[in-house]
């Protein structure tokens, strides 16, 4: 994710893009990888990573749809489609430039300008000009980078929707999404991945345990606090579970997220133009998979020990927590260490879901434990290996987390309070009991009594 992180690209600089065949055959050294080939492969990694991370939007939708009650499923699906689409527009309009100043800061290291350039793609007829027409001939196409980064921004907003399900009004939520994806996320992400002050300070977050996941969780936590718990969730000092409508959908959602994570972490290698890069991408895939598996197994064993029975919803959360935990450093650990990092993520979820309930913070799908607490663990766990550059220190990891989580939380809290004061963020008691599908949208996900 870090644009400053350029691995040495093709060491051999070739003046001509493609050497004539005859010369290539005569030369004793094997044909060098040309700049154009590197450019193509780097762009390809972004594109593959981009559509994999895009599919995580489907994963979030299914997970959340399965974990809310049937009377709120249409609303949850509506929010997921709408938030992704709004994120796509806002990231183009403001976010991408705010996040990647490319050295052109309004306030050095802290704040990029908002709209110096809306152009995020090369010209259509790049073919006529060859590689010289590219924005960044030594790296990758700008369009591929834009689409890849956009998916991360949308994922941040998806995290928020699950935590606030079943009681928030549609439009205030969408307005929050606009602010989060256009401004808050790109701002804090620029400090790290845009080459801002946190990356200068040595903070290390490979694919976004803090930058994406804990950021989304901080926004969700602020929202959950301002919004309050669902009616009847905490009564007479007891927690009243509200079982989800469809655990098959929730499980499908978890597997889709797991799949998408290969793009999330693997794509964050940001380069595929050399054997070294593709070896790293492979290593990242293996570690990512291992951490997810370990998180799921940890939750499986722990819920059996704690409650006498396995809790599927916790196992789903455990796998996702394993994925979030490895996201800050999926490259450097060995498979054995990835297993430990992921398993601790699963442990954190099993412990913190009931803890949030004790604090009467109602997080419908476990977004805050999975993306927040496991995200913090993952960011700290970078210290175990020192990160891909081998220099990550505990102090700077903590600094990065405090800066990003703290800023996101405070800004989100302010936005939620303003929305609450201006238009109200919570549906009426009657609407909540009736279900948001009927009261807010007038459309049921499962219409049992209709004209045959």
């Amino acid at each position, binding site marked *: 994710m870090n644009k400053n992180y350029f691995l040495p690209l093709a060491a051999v600089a070739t003046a001509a893009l493609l050497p004539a065949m005859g010369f290539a055959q005569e030369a004793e050294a094997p044909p060098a990888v040309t700049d154009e080939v590197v450019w193509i492969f780097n762009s390809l990694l972004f594109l593959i990573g981009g559509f994999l991370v895009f599919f995580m939007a489907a994963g979030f939708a299914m997970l959340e749809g399965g974990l809310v009650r049937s009377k709120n499923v249409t609303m949850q699906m509506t929010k997921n489609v709408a938030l992704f689409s709004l994120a796509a527009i806002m990231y183009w309009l403001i976010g991408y430039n705010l996040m990647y100043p490319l050295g052109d800061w309004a306030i050095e290291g802290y704040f990029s300008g908002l709209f110096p350039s809306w152009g995020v793609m090369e010209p259509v007829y790049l073919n006529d000009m060859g590689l010289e027409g590219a924005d960044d001939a030594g790296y990758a196409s700008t369009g591929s980078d834009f689409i890849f980064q956009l998916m991360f921004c949308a994922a941040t907003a998806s995290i928020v929707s699950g935590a606030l399900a079943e009681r928030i009004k549609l439009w205030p939520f969408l307005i929050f999404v606009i602010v989060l994806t256009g401004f808050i996320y790109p701002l804090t992400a620029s400090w790290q991945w845009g080459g801002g002050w946190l990356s200068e300070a040595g903070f290390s977050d490979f694919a976004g345990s803090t930058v994406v996941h804990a950021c989304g969780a901080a926004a969700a936590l602020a929202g959950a606090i301002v919004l309050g718990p669902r009616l009847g969730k905490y009564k007479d000092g007891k927690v009243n579970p509200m079982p989800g409508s469809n655990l098959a959908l929730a499980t499908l959602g978890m597997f889709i997220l797991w799949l998408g994570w290969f793009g999330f972490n693997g794509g964050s290698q940001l380069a595929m133009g050399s054997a070294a890069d593709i070896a790293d991408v492979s290593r990242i895939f293996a570690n990512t998979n291992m951490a997810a598996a370990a998180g799921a197994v940890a939750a499986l064993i722990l819920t059996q020990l704690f409650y006498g029975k396995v809790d599927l*919803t916790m196992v789903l959360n455990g796998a996702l927590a394993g994925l979030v935990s490895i996201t800050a450093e999926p490259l450097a650990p060995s498979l054995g260490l990835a297993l430990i990092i992921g398993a601790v993520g699963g442990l954190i979820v099993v412990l913190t879901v009931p803890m949030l309930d004790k604090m009467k913070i109602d997080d419908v799908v476990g977004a805050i434990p999975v993306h927040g607490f496991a995200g913090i663990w993952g960011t700290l766990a970078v210290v175990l290996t020192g990160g891909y550059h081998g220099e990550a220190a505990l102090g700077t990891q903590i600094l990065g987390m405090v800066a990003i989580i703290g800023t996101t939380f405070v800004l989100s809290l302010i936005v939620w309070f303003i929305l609450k004061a201006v238009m109200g963020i919570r549906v009426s008691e009657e609407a909540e009991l009736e279900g948001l599908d009927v009261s807010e949208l007038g459309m049921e996900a499962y219409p049992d009594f209709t004209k045959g």
Partner: protein
Amino acid sequence: MKLIIAAIKPFKLEEVREALTSIGVRGMMVTEIKGFGSQSGHTEIYRGAEYAVNFVPKVKLEIVVADSMADQVVETIQTTAKTDKIGDGKIFVLDVASAVRVRTGETNDDAL
């Protein structure tokens, strides 16, 4: 005519239907229901919090038969639906004032 209402265990439905058709019952209404009796409920755990499930799932049969058949139907349901474990269900018998077949307008015993 008698209306026989029976609440039985869901997995016994097919067995009871077969037994009833074999003694000549030609129709019944079936509904999935929840309720409680001496079996009461049980507790489940969801995301670390325990909760009581006070209603257990049952299947409700509603069968209208001629007076002469009522005892035999009740006995058949009772013997077929029985598992000797708590929660096997209940059978109620009520009088029916009249019956009409929608297609032909036939009434009472002819309508069954």
